[in-house]
């Protein structure tokens, strides 16, 4: 129970609500005090997202707690079902309802034959782990219960799994993935789990021929769809020039589609010019160090780009959540010793104060504690200040590599 002078790590309940918030026509009912719902609703704009789902609170009063009266939840579920006629209602326990031991699953089970909507429960109450697990749980539930049998089977369609509103810059990154897939393979986006999405588009996800998994938390979702609908998936992020080539190559191998070579050769020329420019810029300088922070895949992905392609050594890769994807850790190789899961504030300060990285790609706290002279880029959440308006400035893909390289050259 550490003391936080900055922001604590968001809980799995927060991740659940964030992941659901961006799904149009998702009806979410929070069973708990209204204040947390209100606070949460106000947070979406800070994540450069807007509320697409319909989120409601039951509120809860002392009598409900003392008497163990659950009627309030049943009443709200019935009302939302009758009033809005949604196809799916997502019921989210609060810390209060979890502590007093309300059996939300049993309540929902009792109502399943009485309401038209499908009910899905998230009962962690904030005590299950960090926010990323909440995102995982939402995507898994969607794959299991919302995705319908395919009406068509179109190999040129793909889904993005694992772009959620907690991924800083998700809008630009999605646009870049869409451009890459279109320019290289002529493929079209079908559904996104879950940023800028809708219940209808997610329900139609099985029509696609490929799932692109952009964070480890989406693997379970992709595996469910692989088992149920035989949809192949590729897990990886297109960071950096070479990283993007490799990513496209993997997609090519999985889909069997051929790449648009003229597009790739144009990118190759740009890449060579840009890397040369960096080398010219860095001539005679001592090696540059960097620190990054973010979700597991984005932080590690960008660190690999810095190290493997720009020859910028990463002194610390701070993962803003606990270690819970062990099978992927093995793939870290050289980075294993600098990857820090859930480092507390003082550990981060100690590392930053002892290494003085010249390049920092991170969340607001990491940027705050880094040297004033460092080249800094808001790369991840938590984001306390930065408003994003553009959707054409990604971190992923060729454009993302350009953008990051340009920032480094101009800031150092």
């Amino acid at each position, binding site marked *: 129970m550490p003391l*936080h002078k900055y922001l604590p790590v968001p809980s799995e309940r927060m991740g659940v609500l964030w992941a659901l918030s961006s799904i149009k026509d998702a009806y979410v009912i929070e069973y708990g005090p209204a204040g*947390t719902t209100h606070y949460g609703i106000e947070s979406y704009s800070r994540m450069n997202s807007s509320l697409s789902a319909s989120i409601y*609170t039951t509120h809860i009063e002392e009598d409900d707690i003392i008497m163990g009266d659950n009627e309030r939840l049943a009443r709200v579920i019935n009302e939302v079902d009758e009033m809005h006629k949604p196809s799916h209602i997502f019921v989210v326990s609060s810390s209060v309802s979890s502590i007093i031991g309300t059996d939300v699953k049993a309540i929902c089970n009792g109502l399943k034959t009485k309401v038209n909507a499908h009910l899905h429960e998230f009962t962690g109450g904030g005590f299950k782990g960090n926010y990323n697990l909440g995102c995982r749980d939402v995507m898994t539930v969607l794959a299991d219960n919302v995705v319908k049998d395919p009406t068509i089977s179109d190999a040129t369609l793909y889904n993005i799994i694992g772009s959620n509103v907690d991924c800083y810059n998700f809008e630009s990154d999605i646009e870049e993935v869409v451009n890459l897939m279109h320019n290289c393979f002529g493929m079209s986006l079908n559904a996104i789990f879950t940023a800028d999405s809708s219940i209808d588009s997610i329900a139609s996800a099985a029509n696609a021929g490929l799932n692109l998994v952009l964070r480890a938390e989406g693997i379970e979702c992709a595996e469910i769809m692989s088992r149920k609908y035989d949809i192949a998936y590729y897990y990886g992020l297109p960071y950096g020039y070479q990283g993007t080539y490799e990513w496209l190559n993997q997609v090519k191998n999985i889909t069997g589609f051929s790449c648009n070579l003229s597009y790739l050769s144009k990118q190759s020329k740009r890449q060579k010019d840009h890397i040369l420019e960096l080398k010219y810029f860095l001539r005679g300088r001592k090696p540059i160090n960097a620190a990054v922070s973010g979700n597991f895949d984005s932080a590690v992905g960008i660190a690999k780009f810095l190290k493997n392609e720009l020859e910028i050594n990463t002194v610390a890769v701070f993962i803003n959540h606990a270690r819970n994807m062990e099978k992927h850790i093995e793939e870290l190789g050289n980075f294993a010793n600098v990857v820090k899961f859930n480092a507390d504030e003082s550990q981060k300060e100690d590392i930053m104060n002892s290494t003085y990285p010249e390049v920092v790609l991170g969340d607001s706290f990491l940027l705050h504690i880094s040297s004033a002279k460092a080249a800094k880029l808001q790369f991840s959440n938590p984001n306390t200040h930065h408003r994003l308006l553009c959707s054409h400035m990604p971190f992923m893909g060729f454009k993302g590599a350009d953008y990051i390289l340009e920032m480094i050259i101009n800031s150092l």
Partner: protein
Amino acid sequence: MNSNSLIDLKRLSQVKDKKDIRKLSYAQFPGTHCPLFGVALTASLVEDMKVLVVGTEECTYYTKMFAIGRERAGEATDNILSLVMEQDEVVFGATEALQDALSCIDREYKPEAVLVVTTCVPEITGEDYNAVIQSMQPNVNAKLMCVKTEHFKCSNHLPGIERTLEALADLMEKRQVKAKTVNILGHRHKGIEKTELFLILTAEDITINLSIPSKCTVELLKGATSAELNIVTDSTALPLARKMKDRFGTDFVYFGKYGSLQRISDSYGQLSFKLGLKIENRVDELRKRTQAVLLKCKNQLSGKSFIYGNTPFAAFEACALFCSLGMKPLLIQTNDIPSDSECIAEILQYGYDPLITEVANIAPLRKLYADFRPDFYIGHEYPHILADYGIAHAVLDAVAGRLGFELLEMTAGMLMQAHAKIREVNVKEAKHAVT
């Protein structure tokens, strides 16, 4: 009543107390803010105090985010620290962790005071945090205080403001009373020195000792008791005023956010009596000036209907003001029905009998916009939704920093501005539709 509403609402003439306020729906969006938010609004104004929020990640994270945003906007100091309760603390207790945290804060930040804020979870687990801080007090230099903010025992954020202000009384020490010196209690906005009340008082050689909480520090709060009189400008500071009267004998007057010229004049009259001021002429002059602004506003807005959401005024105080401008209330959102409200009587006397419903539940309300067709929505709503219906949107948060007649002048100005803005949009859209 529209078929979209599930439960019939009562009208103003039919409501006697809180129990008569019906909901538009059981499902609430966005729901009320909790007392923790009230604490964040208030305690962040006391610069040399640290605020330790004890609760879940959610409570602590969002409170910190809010404080960071306020500091960036120049409205307050981010003095929030967090102690996150995980499953172990829920099961085995957080006493030891709280003690460690308080020692650490005392050592590292050397604050004058620490306000420990307990939230829903620690209040359910039932640990006695007051006892913990009492046992810790001899071991730390900072003055320790505790405020409870569990939301399941109250209906909005105001108790958080009240309790924080009341807790500040524990920082005060008995001092020699200085004549012609006052405190202003309950003002939570920067720029007290620019308010009408402040200027009138200082022109009469009255010294403003402190504005609590907008202009005070822990050190200065010790000397709050040297004021001859407390002027309470917000009802949330009444518990503090009563406590100061009981404990230190400091007299107080209530100078609230009134929507009536007469009530504001009466408040100035009360101040004159208590402090021996000669401000009648100045007050009359201001009253006449404000009356002229209100008349101008009435000429523009008379006959316009409105839905009332929230403003810095008390709900019925605001609605009585709008009715005095010839505006017609269709529906009022409120969380309380004051038993002795002259404002309710005034609204009924104007011949209006609006529907009454609970606050902070705008989702079902939106279904009514098409049928109700209000000219105005006064309070917090998504502006683009109101614009779709051609409804003028007046958010009056900014008037909260004004005290006296200026409050009415600014309110009238903002209403006229909102009206002009939507009229312009509606005219443009009509032209567009024709072409």
